């Protein structure tokens, strides 16, 4: 019997191997707020062989689509997704960093058109170079501490 930090869920999405401390940001990326209807449980600072410490997020009764889940790679490039059905893992995969992101990162450049009152969604080109790097589609500003701009 495997040891589970939080109780088993019947159906839903488990996001594992999140960098410690980033669980709440993962929820933010997934658009889950206090007034959302999903039941969410979180485990933070769980000891992990691979990562030292990690966070885990479980969203009950909901399968989040892959495109949405891949956005997690922005802050947790090692995250693994487990889709659970009837208490069993149905599918397991690692998030893949998207090349282009809309509407998650806010541009740090205050003089950028994406921070004005125009009808505009911030867009970023994203790549991995030792760390995740994002570049504003509009003003070319590079963002390195992405967590701070989500």
């Amino acid at each position: 019997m495997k040891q589970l930090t939080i109780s088993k869920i019947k159906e839903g999405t488990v996001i594992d191997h999140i960098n410690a401390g980033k669980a709440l940001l993962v929820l933010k990326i997934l658009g889950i707020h206090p007034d959302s209807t999903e039941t969410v449980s979180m485990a933070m600072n769980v000891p992990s062989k691979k990562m030292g410490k990690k966070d885990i997020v479980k969203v009950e009764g909901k399968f989040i689509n892959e495109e949405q889940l891949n956005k997690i790679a922005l802050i947790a490039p090692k995250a693994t997704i487990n889709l659970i059905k009837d208490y069993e893992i149905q599918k397991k995969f690692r998030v893949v960093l998207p090349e282009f992101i809309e509407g998650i990162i806010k541009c740090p450049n205050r003089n950028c058109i994406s921070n004005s009152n125009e009808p505009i969604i911030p867009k970023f080109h994203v790549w991995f170079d030792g760390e995740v790097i994002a570049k504003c589609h509009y003003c070319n500003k590079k963002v390195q501490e992405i967590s701070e701009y989500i």
Partner: protein
Amino acid sequence: MSRFRHLISIDDLDKEDILFILKKAKGFENIAKGEMNSKVLEGKILANLFFEPSTRTRMSFEVAMKRLGGDVINMTAQEASSVAKGETLADTIKVVSKYADVIVLRHPLEGAARFAAENSEVPIINGGDGAGQHPTQTLLDLYTIMKESSLDGIKIALMGDLKYSRTVHSLIKALTLFNTEIYLISPETLRLPEEFLEGLRNVEIAGLDDVIDDINVLYVTRIQKERFPDEEEYRKVAGSYKIDAELLKRAREDLIIMHPLPRVDEIDVSVDKTSHAKYFEQAFYGVPVRMAILSEVLSEVVL
């Protein structure tokens, strides 16, 4: 079909696109000077949308369009500021792109031109967006270097405010496509930001005295007073980044001096009479280069 629909950033062009435009500009020089008439853009209308004041860029686009037989409508900075209060840029662009066949936009916010392109039915040419891009300036700079010197195997020094000058930033990027050696000459506090040095080879920080007898091109930019804590500090620093005829005695005979203009006093008028001075030619080359750009983005519309 045109090679590009909009011209937003010099990075959107590859070396071949750039050489194509420069070559095309060469063919337009006679028309730009008024020695030959042209009607290639007859019936086409350019809208100048300037949310920030500019004389040179706006006027040279207007001349370029008219010399090619096209027409121009202008929104002045004053009109723009009252529009800006009540209407989004997105809406302004949607409306004006119904009136005109091509739009030249200058805007104080970075990324404005790329956003405008998303909202426009007609080509957008970036005439400068905040501290961001000014690709037509870069193309005319390259054209000047090509015509008055060479784009291949030269040594070029960029001098003055290398930190804030968007002209310098895009020119450096473009120059790396060519085989040039670049020297950076600036006060300590106005050095080129690291991010522009990334991936650059053949770039060196230098002093004017050390390179003046060796360079082929000296590109001078203005050092602005506002960048300094006080007047005295400014005068001390700016004073050592001035060019006069005396200094040029040590220069190569084929050295050319460029400046995006307007100058204040970084180039002494005594330089104007020397064969080195090319900044007024440079300003003129804005016309054939902008003609080439206009006819290129409008060629798709003609189909």
